[in-house]
C-alpha cells in the first residue's frame, strides 16, 4: 500500500505522529534558552610569560620571538598577535571559529614545553588562558551609600558578591571603587633617622608583635588544656604603643615616630554612578552559561539581597546584558507572528476556502516546532540566526502543501471522492514536490558545511531550513492528503458573504492571468525583443549599481550602551582627572537626554580586581559607561550619540586619546584597521601618525586610534653601583628600600571578624611629594649608616618606550578607524587605500588592511564559492528531475535576475552588500528557480499533450500564474516584516529581508516573461533541427 493511501486510511496514526512532533517541539521551545548569536565557543588562547626586570625590547627578543617561532606551527592558527612590555610578554593566538579549543590548547602546551627550554632561566613558566566573547561582563551594577560608605567594601563583599556568586552560571564578580580598609602607618622620616629606625624594622616589629600562637597542650589532672598566646592587635590604636626601638636606653614607641590611620587604601579607583560616589560590581558569567538565565537568576537574588542591606545602600543596574537579547528575540518573535498572519492571509485570499487555508497553514507551526526540537537536541539557542531561519522558512513551507492541496481540489472538482482524490492526487505531484524540496536542500545543506565564523552563523540556518523543508514535505505528503480526505467536500456550499468577498478577487485574478496570457502571446512572437529587453535591464542594473555599490561585513546593532575611555596625558593627577570626569558627566547628563544611567571611574584599579586591572587604568584614565535605554524610546541611535560625544571630546585640548565604543563583540561598530608592519619604531610611528591625520580629517571616520602608545615620562632612580657597594648594599636591597618608603611595606595583617586588612608602613604622604623627597629618602648601609638616595643615585626624568606589539611575527602598529554613521565599510576602505597609496612607505614596511575588511573578504570569497556550488547542485537536481539538460538551463536564467533585484533593492534602500545580503542571494538561488520549475513543468506537459510550443507556453503561463503568484507572495510578504522591521536588533536582519524580497520580486516579474519566451525559442529551435534531420534522413533513404 502506498504511503499516501496508508496515511489517508490511518488518520489517527498520522494525526498522532504530527501531534507528538508538535508536543515535543513545544516542550523543547519552553526549555530553549535565548541568546543574541549562536554559541561561538572560544577561539583565542592567551599565553602570558613574565621575565622580571626585562625591558620591552628584551622581552621581545628573548621571550616573545622564540615563543612565536614555536607557536607558529600550531594547527588552525589564524593570527598571532603579541605584546611585549616591561616584564611581561602576552601572546594571543587567534584560531578559526568552530575548532576544538581543548585540542588547540594541548597543542599550544606541547609547543610551549619545547620552547621554554630555550628561554632564559629567569623566565617564568608561560601561563595559558582561554578567552572568548563570552567572557565579556554580562552586568554592571552600581552601589551607592551614604553613612555606610566606609564599610561598603565589606558589605558588598559579604552581602552582595558572595550570594550572587552562588547563582547558577555566575563566574567572577569584581567590586571596584569601594573604599578598601587598610591600616596606614605613616612614619616621619626625620624622626626615624634621628632614632636610627628603618621602615623595614617597624614593619617587621609590627609583624612580630601581631601574632596568635597555639602553644601546645598540657594535661592537668585528668583534663587536657590547650595553651595559646593571643596577642594580635585588637585595634589600630593598640599599635601606637608598640615599642619599635630604643634610643639611649629609652624605649621608642610607634606613636613617637608615626601616626596610625585606620582608613582606606590611598590609591583607589573612584567610581561615580549618576554623579554619586559608590562602587561598581562587574559580573562575568561562566563561559558556557546563558546570559539571559544568569541575569534572571541574579535579579531574583538581588531582590532578596536588597532586604538585607543597610537602608542607605542602593544597588542599581548600570548595564544589563540580557535586555538587548530579550528585546531582540522578542522583536523577532513579533516578526514571525506577523509573517505567519501575512502568509495565512495570502493563502486564504488565493484559495478562498477556509478549510483549505487551515490545512495549509497547519504545516507552518508543525514544521517550525520540529526544527525547534533540533535546536534543543543540539544544545543551541533561540538567537538571531535561528529565528531568522524560522522567518525565512514560513513563506516556503506552505508551497508543498499548496501544490498537493490544489491537485486534490482539482481532482475533487472533477468528481472524485475526497478520499480517493487525496490518495491519487498526492501521488501524482509527489515527485515534483520532492524535487522542489531537493532544490531547496541543494541550497541549504551546503550552508551547514561552511567553516569559520560564517560557518557557525549559518550552520544553524542551513539545518533549520533543511529540517523545516523535510518536515513540511512529509506533512504535505501525509498530513495534507489525510486532512483533505476528511475536510474537503465535493461541491462545497458557498455563503453569500463568501461570494461578495471572493467574486471580485477571482475576477481580478482571472483578468490578471488573461492579461498575462496576452503578454506571453506577444512575447513568444517577439522573442528577440524580449531577450534584448531582459538583457538590457540586466546590463543596465549592473552598470548603474555596481560602481556605486557599497559593501560591509556585518551590520552594526544599536545596543543602547556606550563605553567611553578617555586618556589624559600620563602623569595627570587624580584630582585633575576627577574634575574633568565630573565636568563631562554633568555636561553629558544635561545635553544628552537619552542617557538613563551614566557611570564613570578613574584612578588605579586594585590589583586583586581581575576585570578592572585587565582594562586600561591609571590616574590619568577615565572610563565611562552609559545606558541609553531601548532603541524604540529614543530618537537618536547609539551611533549618533557616540558621534556627538566623539565630536565633543575631539575639541577638548587636554584629552590625549579617547575611544567611544558602541557595543561589544559582534554587531559592534564597523572598523577599518590599518596594520603597519615593520621593525623601526620611528618610521612606523611616522607612517601611523601621518595616516591617522589623513583619516581623522575625512568624513568617513568618526574616530581614529593608533595602537602604539607614546613614550611615557617616568622618574628613574639611577643608582651608582660603586657607591652602593662602598656602603655595603646592592641594587636589590636599595631598590626594595625605596619601594618600601614610597609604596609601603606590608608584612602583617590586621584581623577583624574573619577579614584581613593590610598594615602598611610607609612615609607619610607629605614626605613623598616631589623629586626632592625621593632624593632625600634615607637608605641604610650594611653598617647601619644612613645614606640619602641623592648620595648614591641620580633621580632623573626619563621616557619609557611603549610596549612592542607584533602580529604574525612582525612588529605592527594598528590604526583603528570607526566608521561614521551612513558610511559603509567599503567607503572607509577606499579612502584608506587612497591614503596608503599616497603615503611614503619605505620598502621594508608594509601596510595591510585588516579587521572587519579582512573578515569581509574571507567570508565573501567563501560565500561566493558556496554560491557556485549551490548553482551547480540546483542545476543537477533540476536536470535529473526533468531528465533534460536544456530545460533546467532555461530555468537558471531566473538567477541573474534575482541578482538584478538584489542590486536594485540595495540601491533603493541605500544599503551595503554585507554577509547577510550574500546569504540572501544564496537562498534566492533556490527560491527563484521554483517559479521556473512550476511554469516549465506545465509547459512541457501541455506540449506533450499535443499543443504546439507557443500555445503550450501561453496556456502553461496562464494556468500557473496563480500558484506562482501565491507562492511568491507568501515568500515575499513573509520577508517584508524582516526587511522593514525597526525593532530591537532589526539592523541585523533587514539586509536579509530586503535581499530576498527584492530579488524574488524582480526575478519573478522578469522571469514570468523571459523564461516562457526563452523556453519557446529553445524548443522551436530544437524541433526545427529535428525536423531538418528527419528530412535529411528521408532524403538519404
Amino acid at each position, binding site marked *: 500500500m502506498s504511503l499516501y493511501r496508508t496515511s489517508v486510511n490511518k488518520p489517527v496514526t498520522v494525526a498522532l505522529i504530527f501531534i507528538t512532533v508538535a508536543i515535543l517541539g513545544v516542550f523543547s521551545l519552553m526549555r530553549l534558552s535565548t541568546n543574541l548569536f549562536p554559541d561561538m565557543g572560544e577561539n583565542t588562547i592567551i599565553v602570558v610569560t613574565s621575565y622580571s626586570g626585562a625591558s620591552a625590547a628584551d622581552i621581545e627578543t628573548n621571550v616573545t620571538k622564540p615563543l612565536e617561532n614555536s607557536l607558529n606551527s600550531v594547527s588552525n592558527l589564524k593570527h598571532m598577535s603579541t605584546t611585549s612590555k616591561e616584564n611581561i610578554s602576552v601572546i594571543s593566538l587567534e584560531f578559526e571559529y568552530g575548532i576544538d579549543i581543548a585540542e588547540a590548547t594541548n597543542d599550544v602546551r606541547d609547543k610551549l614545553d619545547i620552547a621554554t627550554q630555550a628561554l632564559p632561566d629567569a623566565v617564568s613558566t608561560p601561563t595559558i588562558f582561554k578567552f572568548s566573547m563570552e567572557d565579556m561582563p554580562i552586568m554592571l551594577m552600581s552601589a551607592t551609600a551614604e553613612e555606610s560608605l566606609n564599610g561598603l567594601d565589606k558589605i558588598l563583599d559579604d552581602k552582595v558578591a558572595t550570594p550572587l556568586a552562588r547563582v547558577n552560571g555566575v563566574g567572577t564578580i569584581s567590586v571596584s571603587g569601594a573604599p578598601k580598609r587598610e591600616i596606614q602607618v605613616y612614619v616621619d622620616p626625620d624622626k626615624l633617622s634621628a632614632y636610627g629606625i628603618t621602615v623595614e624594622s617597624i614593619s617587621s616589629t609590627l609583624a612580630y608583635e601581631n601574632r596568635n600562637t597555639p602553644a601546645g597542650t598540657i594535661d592537668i589532672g585528668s583534663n587536657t588544656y590547650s595553651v595559646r598566646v593571643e596577642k594580635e592587635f585588637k585595634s589600630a590604636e593598640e599599635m601606637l604603643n608598640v615599642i619599635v626601638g630604643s634610643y639611649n636606653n629609652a624605649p621608642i614607641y610607634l606613636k613617637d615616630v608615626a601616626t596610625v590611620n585606620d582608613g582606606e587604601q590611598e590609591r583607589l579607583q573612584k567610581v561615580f554612578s549618576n554623579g554619586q560616589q559608590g562602587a561598581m560590581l562587574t559580573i562575568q558569567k561562566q563561559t558556557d552559561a546563558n546570559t539571559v538565565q544568569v541575569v534572571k537568576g541574579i535579579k531574583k537574588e538581588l531582590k532578596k539581597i536588597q532586604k538585607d542591606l543597610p537602608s542607605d545602600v542602593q544597588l542599581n543596574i548600570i548595564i544589563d546584558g540580557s535586555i538587548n537579547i530579550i528585546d531582540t528575540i522578542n522583536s523577532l518573535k513579533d516578526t514571525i507572528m506577523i509573517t505567519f498572519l501575512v502568509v495565512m492571509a495570502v493563502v486564504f485570499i488565493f484559495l478562498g476556502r477556509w478549510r483549505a487555508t487551515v490545512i495549509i497553514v497547519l504545516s507552518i507551526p508543525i514544521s517550525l516546532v520540529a526544527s525547534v526540537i533540533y535546536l534543543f537536541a543540539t544544545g543551541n539557542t533561540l538567537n538571531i540566526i535561528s529565528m531568522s531561519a524560522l522567518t525565512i522558512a514560513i513563506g516556503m513551507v506552505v508551497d508543498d502543501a499548496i501544490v498537493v492541496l490544489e491537485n486534490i481540489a482539482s*481532482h475533487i472538482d472533477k*468528481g*472524485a*471522492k475526497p478520499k*480517493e482524490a487525496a490518495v*491519487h492526487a498526492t501521488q*501524482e505531484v509527489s515527485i515534483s514536490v520532492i524535487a522542489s524540496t531537493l532544490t531547496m536542500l541543494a541550497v541549504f545543506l551546503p550552508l551547514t558545511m561552511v567553516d569559520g565564523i560564517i560557518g557557525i552563523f549559518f550552520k544553524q540556518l542551513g539545518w533549520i531550513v533543511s529540517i523545516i523543508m523535510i518536515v513540511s514535505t512529509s506533512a504535505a505528503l501525509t498530513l495534507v492528503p489525510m486532512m483533505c480526505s476528511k475536510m474537503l467536500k465535493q461541491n462545497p456550499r458557498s455563503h453569500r458573504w463568501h461570494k461578495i468577498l471572493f467574486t471580485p478577487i477571482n475576477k481580478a485574478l482571472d483578468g490578471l492571468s488573461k492579461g498575462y496570457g496576452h503578454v506571453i502571446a506577444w512575447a513568444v512572437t517577439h522573442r528577440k525583443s524580449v531577450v534584448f529587453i531582459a538583457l538590457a535591464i540586466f546590463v543596465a542594473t549592473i552598470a548603474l549599481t555596481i560602481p556605486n555599490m557599497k559593501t560591509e561585513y556585518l551590520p552594526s546593532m544599536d545596543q543602547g550602551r556606550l563605553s567611553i575611555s578617555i586618556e589624559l596625558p600620563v602623569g595627570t593627577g587624580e584630582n585633575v582627572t576627577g574634575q574633568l570626569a565630573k565636568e563631562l558627566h554633568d555636561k553629558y547628563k544635561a545635553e544628552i537626554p537619552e542617557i538613563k544611567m551614566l557611570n564613570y571611574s578613574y584612578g588605579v584599579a586594585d590589583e586583586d580586581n581581575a576585570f578592572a586591572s585587565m582594562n586600561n587604568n591609571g590616574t590619568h584614565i577615565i572610563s565611562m559607561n552609559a545606558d541609553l535605554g531601548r532603541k524604540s524610546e529614543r530618537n537618536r541611535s547609539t551611533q549618533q550619540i557616540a558621534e556627538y560625544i566623539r565630536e565633543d571630546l575631539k575639541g577638548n585640548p587636554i584629552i590625549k586619546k579617547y575611544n567611544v565604543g558602541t557595543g561589544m563583540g559582534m554587531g559592534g561598530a564597523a572598523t577599518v584597521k590599518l596594520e603597519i608592519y615593520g621593525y623601526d619604531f620611528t618610521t612606523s610611528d611616522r607612517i601611523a601618525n601621518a595616516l591617522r591625520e589623513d583619516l581623522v580629517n575625512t568624513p568617513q571616520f568618526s574616530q581614529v586610534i593608533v595602537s602604539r602608545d607614546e613614550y611615557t615620562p617616568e622618574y628613574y632612580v639611577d643608582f651608582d653601583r660603586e657607591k652602593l657597594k662602598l656602603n655595603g648594599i646592592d641594587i636589590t636591597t636599595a631598590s626594595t628600600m625605596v619601594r618600601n618608603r614610597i609604596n609601603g611595606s606590608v608584612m602583617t595583617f590586621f584581623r577583624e571578624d574573619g577579614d584581613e586588612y593590610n598594615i602598611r608602613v610607609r612615609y607619610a604622604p607629605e614626605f613623598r611629594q616631589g623629586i626632592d623627597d625621593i632624593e632625600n629618602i634615607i637608605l641604610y648601609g650594611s653598617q647601619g649608616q644612613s645614606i640619602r638616595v641623592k648620595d648614591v643615585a641620580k633621580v632623573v626624568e626619563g621616557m619609557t618606550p611603549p610596549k612592542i606589539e607584533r602580529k604574525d611575527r612582525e612588529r605592527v602598529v594598528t590604526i583603528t578607524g570607526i566608521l561614521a554613521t551612513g558610511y559603509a565599510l567599503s567607503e572607509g576602505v577606499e579612502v584608506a587605500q587612497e591614503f596608503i597609496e599616497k603615503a611614503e612607505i619605505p620598502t621594508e614596511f608594509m601596510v595591510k588592511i585588516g579587521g572587519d575588511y579582512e573578515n569581509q573578504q574571507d567570508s565573501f570569497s567563501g560565500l561566493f564559492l558556496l554560491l557556485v556550488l549551490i548553482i551547480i547542485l540546483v542545476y543537477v537536481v533540476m536536470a535529473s528531475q526533468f531528465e533534460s539538460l536544456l530545460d533546467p538551463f532555461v530555468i537558471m536564467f531566473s538567477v541573474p535576475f534575482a541578482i538584478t533585484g538584489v542590486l536594485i533593492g540595495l540601491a533603493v534602500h541605500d544599503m551595503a552588500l554585507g554577509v547577510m545580503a550574500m546569504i540572501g542571494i544564496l537562498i534566492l538561488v533556490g527560491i527563484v528557480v521554483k517559479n521556473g520549475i512550476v511554469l516549465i513543468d506545465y509547459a*512541457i506537459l501541455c506540449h506533450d*499533450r499535443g499543443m504546439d510550443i507557443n500555445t503550450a507556453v501561453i496556456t502553461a503561463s496562464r494556468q500557473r500564474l496563480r500558484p506562482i503568484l501565491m507562492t511568491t507572495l507568501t515568500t515575499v510578504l513573509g520577508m517584508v516584516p524582516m526587511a522593514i522591521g525597526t525593532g530591537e536588533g532589526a539592523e541585523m536582519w533587514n539586509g536579509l529581508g530586503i535581499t530576498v524580497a527584492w530579488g524574488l520580486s524582480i526575478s519573478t516579474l522578469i522571469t514570468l516573461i523571459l523564461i516562457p519566451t526563452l523556453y519557446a525559442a529553445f524548443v522551436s529551435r530544437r524541433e526545427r533541427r529535428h525536423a531538418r534531420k528527419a528530412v535529411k534522413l528521408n532524403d538519404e533513404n
Partner: protein
Amino acid sequence: MTGIFIAYNQAYYTEIIELLEKNYSKGFTRWNEISGRGSRGGEPHMGSHTWPTFNDAILTFVEDEFVDSILNDLHELDTKTEELGLRAFSWKIDKTI
C-alpha cells in the same frame, strides 16, 4: 451469466465496489494501476508526466438479471462525473465451472 469489463479512473474504485455490491454481485477481479486511453476522447490515463492519472480495471461475471442495472448505474456514475473517465463492456458467457 454475463461478463462485464469495467475500465475506470482509479478514483472510482470504492464507488464501483459499492455499486456492484448494491447489485448483488460480489465477485470480481481487479487490475490495479494500469494505463489506457479511450477512443472517444477524454483524458488518457497513462501514469506518465503528461497524463499522470492511472486506470484500474475490474472484470466481473454477474447473473444476467443484474447486468442492465449495473450498466445503468455505471452510466449514471459516468455522466455525473464525466471528466474522470469510465467505460464498461459486457458479453455473454458460454460456460463456467
